[in-house]
């Protein structure tokens, strides 16, 4: 197993070089083009266009009886375009729904292609063998002539993206605006469609008709998690696509009887899963952690405020409080309370005293701040928004965790530095208290 692997990557076999470079080029161009489809929310149109290419390939073969890459490519482009216009016609001029239009073209064209394929297989033509490899892709079947033609087509579709990047980005992300500034949207739509058709058609060789959708979709779906900027995503898509192309060429070389398309999908799925889980900011794990941190902060702040409220009622912030008492003023699960107390102890906001707890000076200051936010907001709502005093508590429960010192100051100023909240309780003023304590 290892030896052929090394032999492949030593690139001593000239055929390997051709196959590898072809696969890398095709992979990166489909990855880049696919991202435009994704952002236009037409992710599955690539699937339909790939299926729609099949009858073109077969018809070209029947007509010219040759497997010349140019003939095959031409046929595929033509029939893929017909498929595209059929979908477009149904969307614009009939009540057929969008997803149905895709499914109709996909299955009808594929059926025509298969019909022709089974017809060809019974004919007596020498070149017909291997024509069915287009269904699931076979990278190893690429020869030099194929790679040159496909490579030029791939470069062409990449060149379209590079040359018209600004325009294509605009019609992809904001069509209304593009139309409003008088851009020729129809022309650029067709240009983009041409690039899509071209890269779908050339991708068929290594990815296969059936799984072509994956080659278009996976790179952008994975790249999307890593960045918010289109140029970066496009670059990532190119790299991911190229990687999958290289790996599938490798597999096809090691196990010639295996179709390459499915393996490429498995590689892409791995890349996608890794991105989905581990990407910073947008990845599932990172989002989960961020959520948890936010919930923890909210719990901690609620805990501190409960301490403050109890202390305020007793008019004594020094006597330690039993955890059960906290539960009597705030609806909190025992486990969350326990965790929250431990975190606050670690931050030296709460101190332990014989299974009871009290706020430290630092904790008291923080608790006053939160309580101040809460009560200021309650007052703000009753005064400025005319909300009844008994309705303001729930909103304040949320807003107390969001306010910043700057906002607090502005609200306080607007209310004329008030002393009491709408329920008649004092609004703590931490600067004042802190000043008193230091004195």
């Amino acid at each position, binding site marked *: 197993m290892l030896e052929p692997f090394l032999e492949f990557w030593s690139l001593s076999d000239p055929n390997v070089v051709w196959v590898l470079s072809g696969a890398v080029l095709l992979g990166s161009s489909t990855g880049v083009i696919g991202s435009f489809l994704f952002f236009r929310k037409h992710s599955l149109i690539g699937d339909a266009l790939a299926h729609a290419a099949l009858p073109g390939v077969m018809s070209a073969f029947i007509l010219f009886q040759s497997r010349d890459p140019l003939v095959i490519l031409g046929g595929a482009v033509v029939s893929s375009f017909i498929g595209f216009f059929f979908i477009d016609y149904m969307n614009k001029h009939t009540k057929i729904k969008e*997803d149905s239009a895709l499914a109709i073209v996909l299955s*009808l064209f*594929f*059926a025509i292609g298969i*019909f*022709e394929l*089974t017809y060809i297989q019974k004919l007596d033509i020498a070149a017909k063998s291997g024509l069915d490899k287009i269904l699931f892709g076979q990278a190893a079947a690429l020869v030099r002539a194929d790679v040159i033609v496909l490579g030029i087509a791939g470069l062409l579709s990449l060149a379209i993206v590079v040359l018209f990047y600004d325009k294509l980005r605009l019609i992809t992300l904001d069509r209304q605006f593009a139309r409003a500034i008088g851009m020729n949207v129809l022309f650029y739509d067709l240009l983009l469609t041409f690039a899509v058709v071209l890269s779908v058609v050339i991708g068929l060789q290594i990815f296969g008709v059936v799984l072509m959708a994956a080659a278009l979709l*996976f790179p952008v779906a994975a790249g999307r998690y890593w960045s918010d900027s289109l140029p970066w995503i496009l670059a990532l898509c190119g790299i991911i696509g190229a990687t999958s192309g290289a790996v599938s060429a490798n597999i096809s070389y090691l196990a010639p009887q295996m179709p390459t398309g*499915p*393996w490429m999908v498995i590689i892409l799925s791995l890349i996608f899963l890794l991105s989905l889980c581990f990407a910073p900011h947008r990845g599932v794990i990172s989002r989960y952690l961020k959520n948890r941190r936010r919930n923890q902060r909210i719990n901690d702040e609620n805990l501190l405020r409960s301490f403050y409220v109890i202390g305020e009622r007793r008019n004594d912030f020094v006597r330690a409080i039993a955890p059960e008492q906290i539960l009597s003023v705030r609806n909190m699960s025992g486990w969350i309370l326990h965790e929250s107390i431990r975190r606050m102890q670690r931050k030296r906001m709460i101190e332990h005293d014989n299974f009871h707890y009290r706020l430290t000076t630092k904790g008291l200051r923080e608790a006053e701040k939160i309580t101040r936010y809460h009560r200021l907001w309650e007052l703000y709502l009753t005064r400025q928004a005319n909300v009844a005093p008994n309705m303001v508590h729930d909103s304040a429960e949320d807003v107390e965790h969001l306010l910043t010192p700057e906002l607090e100051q502005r609200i306080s100023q607007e209310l004329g530095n008030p002393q009491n909240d709408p329920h008649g309780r004092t609004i703590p003023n931490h600067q004042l208290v802190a000043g008193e304590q230091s004195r």
Partner: protein
Amino acid sequence: MTHELWIFLIASLMATSCALVGSLMVLRRMAMIGDALSHTVLLGLVLAFMLTGERSLTVMFVGATVVGLVTVFLTDLLNRMGKLQKDACIGIVFTFLFALAIILISAYTGEIDIDQEHLLYGEIAFAPFDTFEWQGQDVGPRAFWSLLFVTVANLLFIVIGYRHLQTVAFNASLATALGMSVNLIHYALTTMVSLTTVASFEAVGAILVVAMLVIPANTAYLFCRSIQGMLIWSVIFAIAASISGYYLAVWADASISAAIAMMSGFIFILILITVGPESVIQKIKFRFGLNRMNLS
């Protein structure tokens, strides 16, 4: 003659069951989910076969249904957790599961009795030879019995759930307001599609299933104004496609299932051109009529 008769019977049953459940899917905007399911049930077949080592109908139905539900569930999960567009999720899930199935098949060739061409376009011509024995008696092709079962199940499903299906199909938010569980109906419909697909699969392959689920239903959708009309007309179109497709295939000596799908497509295009207010003929007439009025 009996051979031909069996093929007609199998094709018509397949067409009927697909058209019935397909009409509901088209109305629910689930056409591409149908496409996804028709690919992923293959994984169900392969896994069921690998686990049990047999090809009985029960095992096949269970495997396909489980994988069908898993497909829809994973799509929803990815949509919610991964924050990706719905159709992108469909594409990701179905290509992954289908690729897995193909790799399993090519890794265990010989052990699994399905080859790649067979699963894509089936071979209905051989279906009558694969007969089913019950109590030692030869009672006809397996495909016939499984399709008969699914057709009856689909009919029962529609008759029993008719009001719910109708409400959910046309106005999902009204259905929710009336206390119907849209999710339950969604998953029930998914189950029916999985069953239909797997029963059709062996005889006609994955692609024809999509064609028969979507095309006759949409042909009827072009001009029908009620759900009953759509159900009836889609079945008529589907059966017409099966019979004309068979003769086309015999004439050209090509795949019967592909020919049937093709014929259903041609019927669709024919209706698109000729029937209804949105038809091409009406559009042309309207345009010229309008022009003449402008001139005068």
